[in-house]
C-alpha cells in the first residue's frame, strides 16, 4: 500500500505525520521524501545513508559542424530551449523538458544527449525502516522529473509512506498519483482551510480515497471541521498545539520519541487508513 501525506499549505505538519507514522509502524516500511525542493524527513529519521546517486535528465547538445541551421529542432520545441538566430543555434539546457522532439526532428543527426543534473537520490535505513529521499540541485527549476524518480521507489510488497511537497500543481500531483490513500494534513486556520480545499480538489481529480489530520487543532477556528463534515472527509487524527511538540520538532525529534504514548495513536491512524482502503468502512 502507498500512503501519500500531502497538504496544500506548507508547514502544516506533513513531515511530522509522515515520519512519526513511519517510525511508529517500524519494520517493513519504506519512507519516501518527495518534497525534493526542501526535503526535511531525514532530519527526523537520521538514517544511516547507504547509497547516494546523482540523477540527471537528458538535454540536447548540438554539433555545430553537422547542424545545417534548418530550424526543425526549434520548430518542434515548445519550451524555447533551442533557438536559431541567423547563423547561430543556441540550446538553453535549463529550459529543456527532455521530450526528445528536437533529436527526432533533426535531419542531420546533429543532436546528442548530454546530462543535466537534477539532484541526488539517497537511500538509507533506520533499523527496519527503509528511507529514500531526493534533493533537488539548487538552481534546478524542474522538480517533477526528480520526484518521479523518487516516487518510482515505492515498493508494492510493503507499506510505502510518501512525504509530498506542498501546493496543488505538478510537483504534488506527481507525488500523489498512483497512491492508494492520501492523508491530507492541515491546520484549522483560514489559510489552512483555503489550501485544504485546493488540495482536496487535486485528490478528487486523481480519484484517490483520502482522510484528514488536523494539526495544532486547538488554534484557529472550527471551519476546517465544518468543511470536513460537509465534504465527508474523515478526520483521522487531531494533534493539539503543544509547546513540547513544537520544541521537539524544532530539534529534529519525533513526537513518538518525546511522548511514547503517541505511538499507539499513529498505529491506530494506520489501522483506520487500512480499513478505508480495504473498503471495510466507507468514510
Amino acid at each position, binding site marked *: 500500500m502507498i500512503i501519500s501525506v500531502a497538504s*496544500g*499549505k*506548507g*508547514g*502544516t505538519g506533513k*513531515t511530522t505525520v509522515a515520519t512519526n507514522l513511519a517510525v511508529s509502524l517500524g519494520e517493513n516500511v519504506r519512507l519516501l521524501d518527495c518534497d525534493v*525542493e*526542501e526535503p*526535511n524527513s531525514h*532530519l527526523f529519521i537520521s538514517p544511516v545513508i547507504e547509497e547516494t546517486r546523482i540523477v540527471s535528465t537528458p538535454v540536447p547538445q548540438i554539433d555545430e559542424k553537422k547542424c545545417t541551421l534548418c530550424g526543425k529542432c526549434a*520548430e*518542434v520545441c*515548445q*519550451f524555447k530551449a533551442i533557438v536559431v538566430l541567423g547563423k547561430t543555434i543556441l540550446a538553453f539546457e535549463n529550459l529543456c*523538458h*527532455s*521530450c*526528445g*522532439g528536437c533529436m*527526432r*526532428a533533426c535531419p542531420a543527426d546533429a543532436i546528442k544527449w548530454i546530462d543535466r543534473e537534477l539532484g541526488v537520490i539517497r537511500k538509507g535505513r533506520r533499523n527496519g525502516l527503509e528511507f529514500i529521499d531526493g534533493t*533537488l540541485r*539548487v*538552481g*534546478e*527549476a*524542474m*522538480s517533477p522529473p526528480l520526484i518521479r524518480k523518487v516516487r518510482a521507489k515505492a515498493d508494492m510488497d510493503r507499506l510505502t509512506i510518501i512525504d509530498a*511537497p*506542498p*501546493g*496543488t*500543481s*505538478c*510537483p504534488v*500531483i506527481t507525488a500523489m*498519483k498512483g497512491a492508494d490513500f492520501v492523508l491530507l494534513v492541515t491546520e484549522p*486556520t*483560514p*489559510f489552512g482551510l*483555503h*489550501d485544504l480545499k*485546493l488540495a482536496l*480538489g*487535486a485528490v478528487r*481529480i*486523481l480519484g484517490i480515497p483520502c482522510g484528514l489530520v488536523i494539526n495544532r487543532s486547538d*488554534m*484557529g*477556528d472550527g471551519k476546517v471541521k465544518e468543511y470536513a463534515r460537509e465534504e465527508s472527509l474523515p478526520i483521522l487524527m487531531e494533534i493539539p498545539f503543544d*509547546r513540547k511538540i*513544537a*520544541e521537539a*520538532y*524544532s*530539534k*529534529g525529534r519525533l513526537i513518538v520519541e518525546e511522548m511514547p504514548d503517541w505511538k499507539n495513536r499513529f498505529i491506530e491512524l494506520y489501522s483506520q487508513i487500512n480499513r478505508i482502503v480495504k473498503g471495510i468502512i466507507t468514510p
Partner: protein
Amino acid sequence: MKELIIISGKGGTGKTSITAAFAFLAKNMVLCDADVDAADLHLLMSPEIVERHDFQGGNQAVINKDMCVECGLCRELCNWNAIDEDYRVSPIDCEGCGVCVYFCPEKAVDFPVKTCGEWYMSNTRFGSMVHARLGIAEENSGRLVALVRQQAKKLAEEKGLDLILTDGPPGIGCPVIASLGGASAVLIVVEPTLSGKHDMLRVAELAGHFKVPAMICVNKFDLNKDETRVIEDTAREKGMEVLGRIPFDPVFTKAMVQGRTIFEYASRSEACEGVINIWDKITERLYLK
C-alpha cells in the same frame, strides 16, 4: 522602484502574515502575491477585483479520433506515458511538449491552448494588489509568477509607486526561481527549527545564484532560542543581514481568523513591535522614503 520578495524555503513560517503586516506599514506600494499555487494573501486583504484575466499556460494534446489510425507512434514517443491504449491523452500527464502533434503521420493530434488559471488586478485597503489563481493540478506556475510580477511592476510604474511587496512561494523550484530574477532584495522568513535552518540555507543559495541580496528574520524565535542564535550566526556567516526577531504569538492566528493584519487586530502586541523593527530596517536598506 524597489521590489522586495518575501520567501522562506520551508512553508508555513509566516511569509504571508508578515507580508500583510508590512502592507499595513508600507506607503506607496503595490502588493503582489506570487504564491500562485496556494495563494493566501487575499484572505487577509479582501481584495476588490477590478480586472480579471485568463492565464494561458501552454498547450495540450488532444487526439482527433476520426483521423487517428492507431499506429502507436505517439504512444511510443510520449515520454510522459500520457496517451492510453484507447488513444486518449490524460490532461494531468500531458507535458504540452507537442511531440505527438509534430510527428503524427496523420496530423490527428490537435494542440489547443490551455487556460490554466486567472490573474487579477484588485484594490485593497492598503493599495493595489496583483494576484492569481493557478488551476488545481495545473502546470506552468513559474510563468504565472513571472506574469503577476510583471503586471505589478507595470502598475507601480504607471502609478509612480516606490515599492512592490511580493509574497513569494515556498520551496526552491520553478515558481521561486521565477520570483527572484531582477528583485531588489529578498527577505527570508525563518522559523527556529532544524528544518527551518536547512531550508533557509537552500533558498539563500538560490538567491545568491541569482545575485539577489538576502536578509533574514526569525519568526516564532522563542520556540527555540538556541536554534534562533544558530540560524542568525549561520545567516551572518553566509553574508546575510539579520533584521530581527518576532515572537511566537497567537495574535497571528487570531488576526488571520478575522481576515486582518496583526496591526489591525492587536497593535500593541510584541509581535507588532518585532515586525515594526524589521520593517524600519527594510526601509533603510531599500532607501524607501
